[in-house]
């Protein structure tokens, strides 16, 4: 990783094209490394990539008419699928090691495909990043789940390292076609 002072600060508009490119490269490398940690089941390491104040949230999406698209997703303070802080995410990870997390026993096989990575904002040491994902889960002998969607992440530089301080996950399904959401997005 580069030293903190090498990494640009300010807003996206302040960046020259080359700095923008370097930042894009850093962010992508970070997201791919993060995805690898999840797919390799290095969950404790994954937790280290999250700041202590992370908000990990997945709203509920609904099929609504075209004139009511503002109500397509539930908002913060409404019901959601995930509304987690770091403590809760630690429980989710700790769960997997208890020997009793039946939804993940034997462990599922997951693949996170992260694409369309776009820097959409920067404010001081925080960068807003949007990406598309395909999270594939293969489970037991023949079970499969595919979740597609968009993640709106806020990354923060902490001691020169990027960490995730906000992850908002927007799925494309309304009725979830999966037995559960025991994977990490």
């Amino acid at each position, binding site marked *: 990783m580069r030293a903190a002072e090498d990494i640009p600060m300010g807003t996206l508009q302040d960046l020259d094209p080359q700095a923008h490119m370097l930042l894009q490269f850093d962010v992508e490398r970070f997201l791919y490394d993060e995805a690898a940690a999840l797919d390799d089941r290095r969950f404790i390491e994954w937790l280290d990539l999250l700041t202590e104040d992370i908000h990990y949230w997945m709203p509920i999406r609904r099929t609504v008419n075209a004139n009511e698209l503002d109500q397509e997703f539930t908002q913060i303070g409404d*019901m959601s*699928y995930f509304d987690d802080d770091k403590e809760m995410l630690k429980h989710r990870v700790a*769960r997997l090691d*208890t020997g009793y997390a039946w939804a993940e026993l034997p462990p599922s096989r997951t693949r996170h495909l992260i694409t369309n990575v776009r820097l959409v904002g920067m404010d001081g040491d925080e960068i807003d990043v949007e990406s598309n994902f395909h999270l594939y889960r293969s489970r037991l002998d023949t079970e499969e789940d595919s979740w597609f969607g968009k993640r709106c992440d806020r990354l923060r530089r902490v001691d020169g390292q990027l960490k995730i301080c906000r992850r908002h996950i927007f799925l494309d399904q309304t009725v979830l076609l999966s*037995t559960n*959401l025991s994977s990490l997005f």
Partner: protein
Amino acid sequence: MNKLERVPSQAAPDFASFVDYEQGLVDRRIFSDEAIYQTELERIFARAWNFMCHESQIKEPGDFFQNRIGDDRVVITRDKKGDVQVLLNSCRHRGNVICRAEQGRAKSFMCPYHGWNYGLDGKLVGVPGMKEFYRNDLNKDEWGLGKAAKVESYNGFVFATMDPDAPPLEEYLGDVGKVGLDIAARDGNIEVVNGVQKNRIGCNWKMAVDNLFDWYHPTVSHASAQRSGFFPQFEESLSHMDQMVMIGEYGHAIAGPLVKPENETTATPAQNRYGIQQLKAHPNIFPNLWITLQGDQLSLRLPNGPFETEIWWFTIFQKGIPEEERRLRLSMASHVFGPGGLLEQDDGENWAHSTRGTKGVASRRYPLHYAMGKGHDQMVGTPEGHMRAETVVNEHGQLWTYKSWAEWMDAESWADLKANHSPAPAGRI
């Protein structure tokens, strides 16, 4: 030899033979037989009072919410007069769906196929080409949308039945059916929080219903909740709890931990009425509406073929509760139940594979065991005038559900069911 082993494999519909109440045995075929499932749609779902939504979800005229009764898609609307309507979401012309959104607000429902337009009360109000093509030879009054036979609310919870001979909702619910809805309603000033969680599990709907009475499974199924530190006192809190069972006509039942009034201090009137300080036990309103701990959430289990169930979670809060309490209850709701809930995520696969386990030719020769506690408990009257058994973990709730299921399935009509269903048991169960 038990009774079930004598059932020939091509049994004529004699559904009582699938459930041996005395021995506590249930034939596996009821979870995976396609013909039985079709009969369930006719004799249970098209006959029962089905939960639709809470009135707070359709406050204003034009508000609508989609649900299903068996394979019938329905739209629940608030019409211009302020009445609640439950309309079949199927055009009278070619059957197409007239409402595609899950919820929202509309002035009318125009069929996207040829444009027949229906009012919020289901009346056919517009037909393209009425004069030119139909030559005015179509009586619009006769071609409104199909409707539920009856729609009634209890404490703001809207139910509908497709059977005109169904008894009134309150009679159907009886005491046992009302308990959960009374506790969920609190002082009446409640609303459904924006956002109904929906997901599909590859299980028979009865496997999901069965589980809500099941206080045997948590210490194993949900052991990760304790060991992950999420709920450190989980096992202790379960093992020290007395259990209670209430059993009602038509299949309603309640089972789970009993917290007695003398042990608690904060009572709501509904809780006092039932002598249940905190509802920790789980009610099911037959066939498929579970009211969770303390009435904060309703879980509706919609059948989608013998091998699939759609689970819907409604979250209910009192209006105007303090922000901090609301935040706590909200996080509790998403962290415990629903597909991402730390407890519930471990349930679905068990239900799916239990269902899968009812398919095999040889497996089907072995009935499932529902006899825990059978014959060991006594229904007694409480000072509040309700019958319940106070006991330990048991399977009375599940067994009663299946006994009632068989009575619903054998009945030719509501009149038949009314005349021939079992009364709620008194004495030994």
